[in-house]
C-alpha cells in the first residue's frame, strides 16, 4: 500500500458531513426548480431517436444557479427560421437529494417510458421559475468537485432552452403547463354554448303561386339573379322568390326557384322573369291555385340560436285530399334561422298549419374540457388534444392528433371530450395557427391566390 495508513482520505462520517453541508448550502443559496422527467412514447430504431415524448411528472428540487450573473449561451439570435433563443443554464443539484427523493419515484414507472432512474438524465426538462422558462438537460456532469474526500456529492445540469415540437407537457402545475399553451401547431375552435329553438308561424291564402317550373336553367349565372314576379291585383299580396344558383365544371346555372312569399289574390298566372346575375337564358313559369288555400308565407317568431346546418321544418295541418306544404329553413347570421322558404306551399288547408322547426344539435353545451385530454369531432372523427379551453368565449385551442381522413373538423358537428365528456357544438374552426408569429402560410397562400393559376389543382393540396 502506497498511501499513508495513518491518514484517511475521507471517512464515511466526513463524507456524510460534506454531503450535509452541501445539501444545506443548496437549500440556503439555491432556488426551487421543477425537474420534469421525459417519458418515451415511441422510440424509433435503426435511425435511433425518440419520436414522441411526454412530460407528466414534476419533482421540486433545490438547485444552485451556477451561471448566477445571467444565462450562458448565445442569447437571442435571428436565424433562417426566425428568432431562436439560445440561452443556457447551469444548475447544481445534490446527488443525495436526487437519489433519495426523485429516483425512487422514477423506479416505479414503466421501464419502457423511463429508461433510467438512478440519475438525472439528458433530455429531461427543468422549469426555471425565475425566468418562467423550460430548459432541457443536455448534459449531466457528475464529477464536479472532483472526488473530494473520495466521493461525489453533486450533479451539474447543463441545460439549454427547450425546443418544442408537439410534446405533451402535463405536469399538473398550471404555471408550467400554460407556458406551452400557445406553442406548437394549434387549431382554434369556436364552439357554441347555448342553443335556442327557432319558432315560426304560417299564413294561408287563396290565389297563391301553387308551383314554379324552371323550364330553362340558363347559363353564366355567376352571381345570384333577381326573380321578378308580376304583382297581384289590388287587395292581394305580391309573390316573391329567390333563385338558387349552381355550378358544375365551370358552367353556372340556376338550380331552383324558391318562393319566399307565395302571394295571394292572384287571378291570372303571373309572369316570372330572371334578371341579372351575369347570365341569360333562364325561363320560369308557374301555376296558381285560386280555389283552395295553401301557405302563402312563413313568419319567424323566434330566430333561435345554435343552428349550423338547415334544420328540418315540419308543417302539421289537415289538407284533406290536398298536399302538405314543404318549407326550407335558412340559417343566417349568428347561427339563427333568418327565414323559411317555400319549396311547396301545399294545397287544401282550411286553417293555418302548425310549423315546427327542428332544434339545434345541442340546446346546451355541457362540461369543461380538460387540459391535454383528447377531443374528437362527432362526424369528422378528427381528433385533437386540448391546449386550452375558455368557457366564457367558448374558444377551444387544440393541437391536432389525427385529421388524416377529413383534413379538419366539420362546422356543425359536436366536439366531444374523451375524458371529460364535455360536449359543445362547433360553430367554426381555424386551421391557421394564429399564435405562431413565425408562420406565414396563410399570408403566402392568400397572396398566391391572385397570382398562381392552379386551375388544374394544386398537387400539394389546398391550404
Amino acid at each position, binding site marked *: 500500500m502506497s498511501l499513508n495508513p495513518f491518514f484517511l482520505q475521507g471517512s464515511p462520517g466526513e463524507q456524510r458531513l460534506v454531503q450535509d453541508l452541501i445539501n444545506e448550502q443548496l437549500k440556503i443559496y439555491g432556488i426551487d426548480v421543477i425537474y420534469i422527467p421525459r417519458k418515451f*412514447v*415511441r422510440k424509433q430504431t435503426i*435511425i435511433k*431517436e425518440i*419520436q*414522441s415524448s411526454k412530460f407528466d411528472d414534476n419533482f421540486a428540487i433545490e438547485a444552485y444557479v451556477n451561471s448566477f450573473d445571467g444565462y450562458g449561451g448565445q442569447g*437571442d439570435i*435571428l436565424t*433562417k*427560421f*426566425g*428568432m*431562436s*433563443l439560445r*440561452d443556457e443554464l447551469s444548475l447544481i443539484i445534490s446527488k443525495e437529494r436526487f437519489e433519495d427523493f426523485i429516483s425512487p419515484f422514477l423506479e416505479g414507472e414503466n421501464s419502457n417510458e423511463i429508461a433510467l432512474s438512478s440519475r438525472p438524465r*439528458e433530455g429531461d426538462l427543468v422549469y426555471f421559475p425565475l425566468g418562467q*422558462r*423550460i430548459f432541457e438537460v*443536455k*448534459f449531466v456532469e457528475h464529477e464536479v468537485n472532483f472526488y473530494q474526500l473520495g466521493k461525489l456529492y453533486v450533479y451539474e445540469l447543463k441545460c*439549454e*432552452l*427547450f*425546443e*418544442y*415540437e*408537439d410534446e405533451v407537457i402535463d405536469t399538473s402545475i398550471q404555471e408550467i403547463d400554460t*407556458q406551452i399553451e400557445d*406553442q*406548437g*401547431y394549434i387549431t382554434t375552435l369556436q364552439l357554441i354554448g347555448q342553443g335556442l329553438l327557432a319558432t315560426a308561424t304560417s299564413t294561408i291564402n287563396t290565389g297563391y303561386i301553387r308551383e314554379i317550373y324552371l323550364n330553362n336553367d340558363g347559363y*353564366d349565372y355567376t352571381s345570384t339573379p333577381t326573380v321578378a314576379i308580376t304583382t297581384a291585383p289590388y287587395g292581394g299580396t305580391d309573390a316573391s322568390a329567390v333563385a338558387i344558383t349552381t355550378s358544375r365544371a365551370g358552367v353556372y346555372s340556376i338550380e331552383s326557384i324558391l318562393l319566399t312569399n307565395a302571394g295571394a289574390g292572384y287571378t291570372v298566372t303571373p309572369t316570372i322573369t330572371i334578371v341579372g346575375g351575369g347570365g341569360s337564358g333562364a325561363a320560369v313559369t308557374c301555376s296558381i291555385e285560386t280555389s283552395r288555400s295553401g301557405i302563402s308565407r312563413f313568419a319567424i317568431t323566434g330566430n333561435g340560436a345554435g343552428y349550423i346546418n338547415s334544420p328540418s321544418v315540419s308543417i302539421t295541418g289537415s289538407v284533406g285530399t290536398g298536399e302538405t306544404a314543404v318549407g326550407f329553413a335558412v340559417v343566417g347570421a349568428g347561427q339563427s334561422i333568418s327565414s323559411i322558404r317555400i319549396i311547396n306551399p301545399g294545397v287544401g288547408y282550411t286553417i293555418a298549419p302548425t310549423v315546427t322547426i327542428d332544434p339545434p344539435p345541442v340546446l346546451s353545451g355541457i362540461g369543461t374540457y380538460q387540459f391535454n385530454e383528447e377531443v374528437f369531432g362527432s362526424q369528422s372523427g378528427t381528433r385533437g*388534444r386540448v391546449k386550452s379551453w375558455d368557457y366564457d368565449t367558448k374558444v377551444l385551442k387544440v*393541437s*391536432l*392528433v*389525427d*385529421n*388524416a381522413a377529413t383534413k379538419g373538423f366539420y362546422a356543425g358537428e359536436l366536439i366531444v371530450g374523451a375524458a371529460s365528456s364535455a360536449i359543445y357544438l362547433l360553430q367554426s374552426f381555424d*386551421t391557421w*395557427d394564429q399564435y*405562431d*408569429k*413565425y*408562420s*406565414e*402560410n*396563410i399570408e*403566402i*397562400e392568400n*397572396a*398566391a391566390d391572385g*397570382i*398562381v*393559376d*392552379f386551375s388544374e389543382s*394544386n*398537387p*400539394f393540396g389546398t*391550404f
Partner: protein
Amino acid sequence: MLGTYYYHEIIRRTVIAFGTMFNDIYIRHKDSTGDSISEMKVPLAYGPIQKFLARIEQQPELNKPIAMTLPRLSFEMTSIQYDPTRKANITQTFKTCDGSNLKKVFLPVPYNIGFQLNLMTKLQDDALQVTEQILPYFQPAFNLTVDLVDSIGEKRDIPIILDNVSFTDDYEGDFSTRRILIYTFNFTVKTYLFGPVSETTDGLIRKVQVDMYADTNRQTAKREMRYTVQPDPYDAAPDDNFGFDEEWLSFDDSKTYSPTQQTDI
C-alpha cells in the same frame, strides 16, 4: 433612355408562387402502437426579415418560455441570373389587351432566380417525412402558371427545377452543443422579366368589311356585294362573351368604297 417608372412585382410574385408550393405540408407522429398522436402543419416563412420586426413579433413580451418551435420551413431568394438559353429577339413586341385597351409589350427577358428552401426539424424522421412530400413532384422540374403582369393578364408557365438536396446533421462532438438538423433544397425558377407596358396607337378591330367585285380590273370594277361583321354588342371587350352581327348587302349603284373617305363614291 431608362427611367420610365414601372414595377410589375414579378420577382415578388415569383417568390410568392414559389412559397405557396410548400405551405401545406404536414408531419405526423405515432405512438408505439402505430396510432397517430400528433399532426402538425409545418410553418413556412420567407427567411430574410428585418431584425427589429422579428424581435417584436416573435419575442414581443420577452417571456418566451422555449427556444423555438420545430419543425420549420423557410425559403429565400439566393440569386438572379440571366438565362441565355431562353434568349428571344429583344426588339420584338407583342400586343395584348388589359381588358379594354390594346397594349404593347416588349418580349420579356429570361432570368433564372435561385431559391433555397430550408427545413429545420427536431427529428430525422420529421425531415424525411417532409422531404418525401416534396421530392416526387420535381422531375426535376415542376411547372407553375403564374400571372406575372396582371395589368395585361400575362400568365407564364414557370418551371421550378429542383437542383439538389443537401443536409447537415451535427450530431458529433461534445454534449455542450445541440444537434441541429437542417435540410437544404436548392431550386432554380425560370421566370421572365417584363419591361414597361405601353399604350399602342392601334385599336381593336371591331368591324370587318369585305367588298366583292364581279371583275378583277380594279380600275373599272364596282363592288357588287358587301359582307360586314362586327361584335354583338359592339363595345364588347375581348374577354367578354359576345356574338357576331353579320350583314350582307348587294348594290347596283356602280360605286366603290373609298378607304380614305370611308364611304362609297
